[in-house]
Structure formats: C-alpha cells, structure tokens
C-alpha cells in the first residue's frame, strides 16, 4: 500500500494555478525526489502536504487517513515532518532547544504538571535533552550543542531543521531544497545524511535543484512544471526523457514562456543534469 496518495490536488492563487490537478503516490521506504524549474509549484506542494495551505481541490491521503483540510499540527501528528526552503528556525532559542521542540509530540504534558514541574516531568526533560543532543550528533551538529541558533552559520541551520524534523519521529520527511546555499563539501555530506535517513526507515521526499544530489540518491523522481506532472520514473528514465529536457532547456530555445521567462538557475540546473 502506498504511504501517501495525492489525488487531483490543486492550489490556486488569484487565478494562478500553482498546483494543478496533480496526482501521484509515494511508496514507503526509499527516496523520492520532486524537481522542476523555479516557480513550478514544488514548495506550494509541500505546503499543501503539511496543511500550511488548504487545497483548492483534491485529496491528500496518508496511510489510511484522509488529511485533506487538516491543520499543520495534525499532519505532524500523523507522522509527516518537513524542513523549509526559507528557514523556519526558532532563533530565540539554543540549537539544542530547537531540536527539543521537535520532540513536543512525544513529551507533551498537562498544564498542571508544566506549572508544578513534578519529578516525572523533570525526568522526561532529561531524556528529551539527551535524545535531542543525540539527534544533533546524528546530523553532524556535534559542535553546536550549546550554541544559540542565531549564532549558527546557514549550512548548520539547514541541518538543524533536519534534526528538529527527525525529532518528531516521522514516517515521511519532506526536505525543501536542503542543498541550496551549501558549499560542495556540505552538499556531499548531505548525500550521506539522506541515505542514512532512508536506512532509518524514514521515507524521504526531496525537493532539490542540485541534480547531482537528486540523481545520486533518488529511487524515484517526479517532475513538475507549471504545477502539473510532467514526468515520473527512475532517475535514468527522467534523465533521458525528452519532455524533461524540453522543460528545462526548451523554454529558453523553443517557445516564449508565458509567465516569466526561464530563470538562469533552471538553465544552469539543466546544464548540470546533462553533465
């Protein structure tokens, strides 16, 4: 049975179809990538899949639960976690506390016990702290254990979001451009991290422009263009799909782009893809 079923999902922003009648399935295990030119609707799709946006139409079924129209915290409660293209780090806390917040669902306590701080809560807090520290080491943030989030470099913050998402113990993890802004060494480390996530039993959905990363780690790729599914299949099949090459390169060569013209980065990415 598929882990996630998306059925003719749509999202309109005053006339613009950011996601347009999109259907696909995500099988449990493995790494699935979603690629597409800038503005293709990838982030919008992730926002829909985490309840941040309410769909204009269609359904989102996770396991046996129809989550369409639910609030983001309910998606999290069912085991969907994510990171953000525009970081949503808690900059008013330490790095460790950021990850501890991620354990909220598993450490929730009543108001009375929070106010009175019973011995049980104190013990649970210790466990929470230890596990958060463990997760930070796992994603390679060992040296940031006692650092304030607002004093961390960009690359470390991206990992911090991954650690925070992992702390929720997700079944499905959505990563929105985790390699963007990373230097080549950091990007290489990311390959390894994503591989380990998958081994941990977490199904990964990767939205990425870095084709080396995508082609290297994905078992399955979905290509979006103008909010619609352009192609779907294995890395090898996608690499050689003429429609995909057309979408990345063709818009610059073949036809005038009705929305905004192809962005430089899309072409650059296409260049990478051909390499």
């Amino acid at each position, binding site marked *: 049975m598929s882990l996630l079923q998306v059925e003719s999902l749509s999202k309109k922003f005053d006339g613009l179809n950011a996601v347009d009648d999109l259907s696909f399935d995500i099988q449990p295990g493995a790494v699935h990538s979603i690629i597409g030119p800038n503005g293709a609707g990838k*982030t919008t799709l992730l*926002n829909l899949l985490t309840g*941040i946006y309410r769909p204009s139409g269609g359904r989102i079924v996770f396991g046996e639960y129809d989550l369409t129209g639910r609030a983001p915290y309910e998606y999290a409660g069912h085991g969907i976690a994510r990171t*953000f293209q*525009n970081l*949503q780090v808690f900059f008013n806390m330490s790095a460790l506390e950021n990850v501890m917040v991620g354990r909220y669902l598993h450490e929730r306590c009543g108001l009375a016990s929070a106010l009175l701080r019973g011995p049980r809560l104190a013990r649970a807090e210790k466990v929470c702290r230890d596990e958060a520290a463990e997760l930070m080491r796992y994603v390679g943030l060992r040296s940031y254990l006692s650092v304030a989030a607002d004093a961390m470099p960009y690359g470390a913050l991206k990992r911090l979001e991954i650690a925070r998402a992992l702390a929720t113990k997700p079944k499905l993890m959505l990563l929105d451009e985790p390699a963007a802004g990373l230097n080549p060494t950091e990007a290489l480390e990311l390959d390894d991290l994503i591989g380990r996530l998958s081994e941990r039993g977490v199904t990964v959905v990767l939205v990425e422009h870095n084709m080396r990363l995508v082609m290297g780690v994905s078992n399955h790729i979905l290509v979006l263009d103008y909010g619609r599914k352009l192609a779907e299949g294995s890395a090898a099949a996608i690499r050689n799909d003429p429609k995909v090459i057309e979408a990345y390169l063709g818009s610059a060569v073949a036809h005038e782009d009705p929305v905004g013209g192809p962005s430089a980065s899309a072409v650059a990415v296409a260049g990478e893809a051909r390499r």
Partner: protein
Amino acid sequence: MPKQYSAPGSQGKGERDMSAQFMQYLLTGLTVGAIYALVALGFSIIFNASHVINFAQGEFVMIGGMVTMSLAGTGLPYLLAIPLAVVAAALVGLALEKFAVEPARGASVVTLIIITIGASIFLRGLAMLVWDKKLHALKPFTGDTPIAVAGATILPQSLWVLGVTLVIVLALTWFFSRTLFGKAILATSHNRLAAELVGINVRMVLFFSFGLSAALGAIAGILIAPITLTSYDVGVMLGLKGFAAAILGGLGSGIGAVIGGLALGVAEIMSAGYLSSAYKDAIAFVIMLAVLFFMPSGLFGKRGGERI
C-alpha cells in the same frame, strides 16, 4: 403608541418627525464621522510610510484646537491663527519622527507602540503646563445660527467640518496620484526596499509623513473644537476612535479611512439616539472588535498572508 390612533394627519407628521430625526442623527453622525475620518487618515499615512501606529495622533488634534484657541485669544484673526496652529502641530509631528521614531528604527511593534504612547503622555503633560486642565471654547468660524436641512438643522460649523474634510480628501487624492512626492510615499509603503533602490529618499518620506499626518490631525482638532470644546486631553478618545475608524476601513487604506470614519460617526450617533447613549463611546470599539473578528483586513484593506 397611542399617537397612531389620533387624527389622520398626525401619522404623516409622525413619519415626518421620524425622518427629520433620522436626518438630524445622520447629519450629526457625518460631522463627527468626518473628524474620525481625518484622524484615521493621519494614522493611515504614517502607518503606510513607516508601519508605525502612532498613538500620539490624538495629541495633534489637541494641539490644533488648543493653539488656535490661544492665538485667537490674543486677538489674531482665524485666517492667521489656524494656519499657524496647523504649522505648529506639523512641527511637533516632525520632531516626533526625528527624536522618537527615527532613533528606534527596526524596533519591535511593542516597543514602537510604547514610544508613541510615551510621546502622547509627554505631549499631554506639556499641554497641561502650557495651558491648564480646563475645557476651552472656540468661536465658530462663521456664526452659530442653525441652518434648516430637510426638516433637521445643521450648524454652520458642521458645514465647515464636512466641506473642509471633502476638500482635504480631494487634495490628498490628487497628491498621492499626481505628484511625484505622493507617489514616492505610496511606493515606500508598498515596498520600502524597492523604493530605496529606485532612489527614493525613504527617510525623507517618513519624516514628511509625520508632518502631513500631524497637520491633518490639527485641522480635525480646529474644525471640531467650536462644536465640542477642547482641552489638554481631548486627543485620547478622538485618537482611539480615529484608530477604530482606520481598522474598520482597513489599516493603511485612504478611502477606507474616510468611509470607516463616516460609518463610525453615523453608527455612534444613531445607536446613541435610537438605543442608548450610555454606551455611546463603546460603540466604536465594539464595531472595531467585530470587524477584526470577522473581517480582519477591514472594508478596503489588503488581504493575503505571508509566504512560506
């Protein structure tokens, strides 16, 4: 009502009374509403330019009325006293921007709110020193013989209020749509960074917007003083209600401020007349809360949330 069973003609008369009364409430409401509209416009101009909610807006209203009262008291004709009072208020507005808002650029919403409230307390304290705690009257601009309008009466001063408000709204419309400086203000409110990039002097825009908005507040204070009297603390209620009007219309929308102000004035007077005057001052806030609960962007405000 027993009246309805009396002579046939009286029903018509009763109806006429009814409509005359309605007319009276409407005229009074519009007059009060025009003042709220001017105050709300002042809020909107500053909010647009700087995203600061200026809680000292009401004090500009007070300064306008009190300075005019003092100058007129020395025998100066209104033709001189009024422009001087408006200039005085504008200078206070500029000083507020220069010495209180500008140094706190980038501060949080709460901090800016406390700064402008501190400024309003400071200005009230100053007014108490310069003048006193008493109520002061201002002579109407052109006599006080009521004029009959459709069965109701209207004071000449009310006509001044409505007329001047109309002129100001037209002038502001022209200013924001036709002059370069007005467009610069609009551009800044839309996207500050982009405005800076195309060479707009954003600091100048902020500075100027405080002066303009203070002048508007002062005009409101001068117009209304002959009707309601003035004192060192008239600004408190007028400021808050102007605020409610701005929210009703949609924070930052010029047309919204005007419609919101008029609607609030009429609603206030009507509910005081037909329901109960005990809660006259509360109406504005009840309406404001209702708007915020059910239509958070107001009648004409921009909709839409942040992007993730």
